[in-house]
């Protein structure tokens, strides 16, 4: 399948990142030769255990850090170019905001960085605060008084202040209560319905499974798998027949029919394979000698993918 630039939101080509120490020696290979493309209008999930390079990928895309090798482009512009930031929204893994500003002031400040006129800001800010569910009293409080979930919500509002076309969410649901998590998922789906592209980083698999169309799983900086959530989760040797309103007699008849056809181990329940299984399988497969290897990339010069235990 060939893609034109118009349909690509993000294109990552052979992207690698090696963190260096003070003396310029290689310390950690956080990302290793990652190539992938995210289409416009899709919700893409970036999965991986702690320290697998998810946040590193996002930082590279945003120009917060510079790649050791490879390149990336966002909405047709090279990653890190200031101009394209007009159309990007970014929610970092924690709410990195000015703690001495109030919620409202925070949004006004970020709005002014987008040169949004004051009038428009006065209209947009309350709407956004409603969207992320911050009540009127909390809006006037300083961020240092916010609970983690509240900070997360204002962080999300900040990411949406410019009505972005591409939204990068780094673990958006951490710190949110179940209702908040639900709302977050709904929001992501509604963003998708508005035609926006969402890149979602998470290790909360249930969240990803609910909202993402395509995912990739990173492990030690390397891409392990990429594809449609549906395809990836399909269990090839199990056929699932779903019907509505079968009576137990009909079920029994069906079972007999199947055994006559020589099919064994017939289970009439819902298949339990989940994203979680897949995730666990991949992580286990890469673990050397069945030993549990500490998460994160390997220290030293060896790259993170070789599974050597940390020194």
């Amino acid at each position: 399948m060939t893609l034109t630039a118009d349909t690509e939101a993000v294109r990552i080509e052979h992207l690698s990142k090696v963190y260096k120490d003070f003396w310029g020696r290689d310390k950690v290979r956080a990302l290793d030769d990652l190539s992938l493309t995210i289409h416009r209008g899709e919700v893409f999930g970036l999965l991986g255990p702690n320290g697998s390079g998810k946040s590193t990928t996002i930082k590279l895309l945003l120009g917060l850090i510079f790649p050791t090798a490879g390149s990336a482009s966002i909405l047709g512009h090279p990653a890190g170019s200031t101009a394209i930031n007009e159309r990007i929204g970014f929610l970092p893994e924690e709410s990195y905001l000015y703690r001495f500003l109030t919620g409202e002031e925070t949004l006004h400040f970020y709005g002014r960085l987008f040169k949004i006129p004051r009038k428009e800001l006065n209209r947009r800010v309350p709407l956004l605060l409603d969207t992320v569910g911050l009540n009127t009293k909390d809006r006037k409080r300083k961020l240092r008084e916010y609970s983690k979930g509240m900070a997360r919500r204002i962080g999300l509002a900040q990411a949406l202040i410019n009505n972005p076309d591409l939204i990068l969410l780094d673990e958006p649901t951490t710190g949110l209560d179940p209702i908040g998590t639900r709302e977050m998922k709904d929001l992501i789906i509604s963003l998708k319905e508005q035609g926006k592209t969402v890149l979602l980083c998470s290790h909360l698999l249930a969240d990803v499974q609910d909202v993402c169309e395509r995912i990739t799983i990173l492990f030690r900086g390397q891409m392990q798998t990429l594809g449609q959530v549906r395809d990836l989760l399909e269990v090839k040797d199990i056929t699932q027949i779903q019907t509505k309103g079968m009576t137990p007699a009909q079920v029994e008849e069906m079972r007999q029919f199947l055994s006559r056809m020589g099919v064994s181990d017939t289970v009439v329940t819902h298949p339990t394979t989940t994203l979680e299984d897949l995730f666990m399988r991949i992580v286990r497969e890469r673990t050397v000698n069945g030993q549990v290897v500490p998460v994160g990339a390997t220290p030293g010069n060896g790259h993170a993918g070789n599974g050597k235990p940390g020194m």
Partner: protein
Amino acid sequence: MFPNLPQSLSGSFSLNILLAAPSVWSQYAPWIVASVLVIAGLAAFGFDDVLRLHWRRIWAISGVCVTESLRRRVLWVTPMAVLGVIVISQLNQPLDAQDAIRQTTKFCLFASAMLVTITAVILACTNLPREIENRVIFTIVTKPTTRLEIVIGKVLGFARVSGVIILIMGVFTLAYLQFRTWRMVGQLKAQLAAEPANSPLRPMLAHYVNSGLLGTRSIEWAKDVQVFARPPQGDMRWMAGGEGQYFIVPFELTQADKELLASATNGGKVFVTTTLLVEQHKPDESEQRLIKDMGLLKSKTSNVLGPAAPTTAPAGMTAPPPQVAFRLLDENHRALSGSADMGVGQVVDLKAPEKPGMPFRGDLELSPDMVARVTGAGRFYVQVNARTPATLYGANDRPVFLYIPGAAAPILPPADPTNASRVALPTFYSFPGRGGMRLTGRADGAGPVAAFRFRNVPVETGSKSGAVALQMNVTIDKTGDFDASTGSLSRASVEVLNSATGESSGQIEVSPETSRVAPVDVPAKFVAGGNFDVLLRGLTPGQWLGVQNESLSLVTADRSFVFNLIKSLFILWLLSLLVVIISVFCSTFLSWPIAVVLTLLILLGHWGVDQLGDALKPGGGRNTALEFQFQDVSQTIIVSKGVEGLSSMLRFISAFLPDVAKFPVMEDIERGVSIPPQKVASSLGVVLCYGLPMLVFSYVIFRKKEVAP
């Protein structure tokens, strides 16, 4: 503008070429270098970021800095400073009302300067590193803000904070000074009313009551000051013996002169000759004592002693025969004759003339060694000291020459730089005391005079009172002869001579106090045209006045104190702007504690090297090495070379550092002098010349920086 650059760099040969270039270049070099750096820095990443600059983003970023400072209660430092100023100015023991106000002004400005610099350094140095550390920067740089806007926004933000602090301190300063002035003028009024009508304190009290204590003036200083025995008449100028008076004549040997001297040493002789009119009088009591102390009583059986001098020679003790002492000085006014000189010079008797009324003559024969030194120096000075007490020495326009018997003409000083048709005139001095050249007092007003030369002074005509004010500021030292019973007040007089009209104001009496400004009102016509001389005489016997160029000034205009305070605070704000820029620059690549240290080093480096002063002058290495008293010559050379290299490196580096002395926040306003616009301009120049390139460097570094910690 680093006007310090040319002098400081003159030692480094690599830049000599640069300095040899036309003066236009050396004058504008800092500007050119700064612009080149700015353009190169901005061009390093293409001009996209420059084109994207938008004031709204910059203002928003600076606004957050301001909000942060305010919400972190940074402004709480101002009440602390205010409290400190009030306490210190109450504890301070001023000399009088005017002094109290000036001291208070100084405390206020000093406190403001300290406060604003320290706050600026700490805020600006810690801000960027902290935002990177707590990753707030993530949400800033992922917005459409360029790093250039961030750097400018931060600088602007802290400049705004400094501005607020300065504003608060300024308002406090003004209010506090107004309050103190109001109270003190009240006290002065009461004192004036109580003072007897003939009290010598009345004019000064009246002056303060009328013009207030917060006056600010534009001041013009004298071009130079010389000390004579009596007011000069044309080119005829006098010095008094026994009072440490002397004159100095410059010499500049041409090639022909040098050849003449060289031929003369082959068997011939070379003299330094002076011709002087001599007047002697009966020594008074103190002169008699001096004559005894100098051992001049024993009549010298000198063969050069001619007939009695044409004087009012009294019966009893007479003035000893007239003598002068010669010294030969190099370009830097250090003795050419080396350590043998001891500062007193070589004493020479003056030969009386054949006919009375003609000049006396003194000849000093130069040794061949001395002739060689003089020839080697090329430029040198001859100092002639008036030695004999109770004697006046009169010099015309060419009182000293090099006399070579047999030569066609004597060697004369070079042409006067201001008037090529005659030779350079001698300059008259007296030995320095605590506060400048000593001026002995004499009750009859016929003692020595200090002549202050004012030229092309912009005098504002049409002042309401028809008078202009001179300000006198001298030190007063008492000699052993001082008779304390005559009262505590010193007396002096001032006489103004208008060069254009030749009119004299006559002697106007003043009662100066040591190191204090005494105002003297003079009718405006005597200074009209701006070219005039002021003669200052001490009238209290047994006292010395210490005079220097700054001892006498003319108030050319009265200015508003508020405006002066605003200028001073603006200079302070410029200083804080520079501080902020340097801090932000350092914080783009250093952790904040190191950034603070580096900022202080950059700020104070130039000043520090200036303070080391002589220790870093060329030749300092040799002195250091000699102090070690090495046995081995090679060790001495190594140490000397090392120290020399180190000090020239320090001087070189410091030449590129900003000079905080270029930010004169206090010196003028404290003395009640209107800050000249040039000083404001030169502060602005330093900020632009250093600040802009540094701002751009900050951007370049920050642009290349990964902001993830």
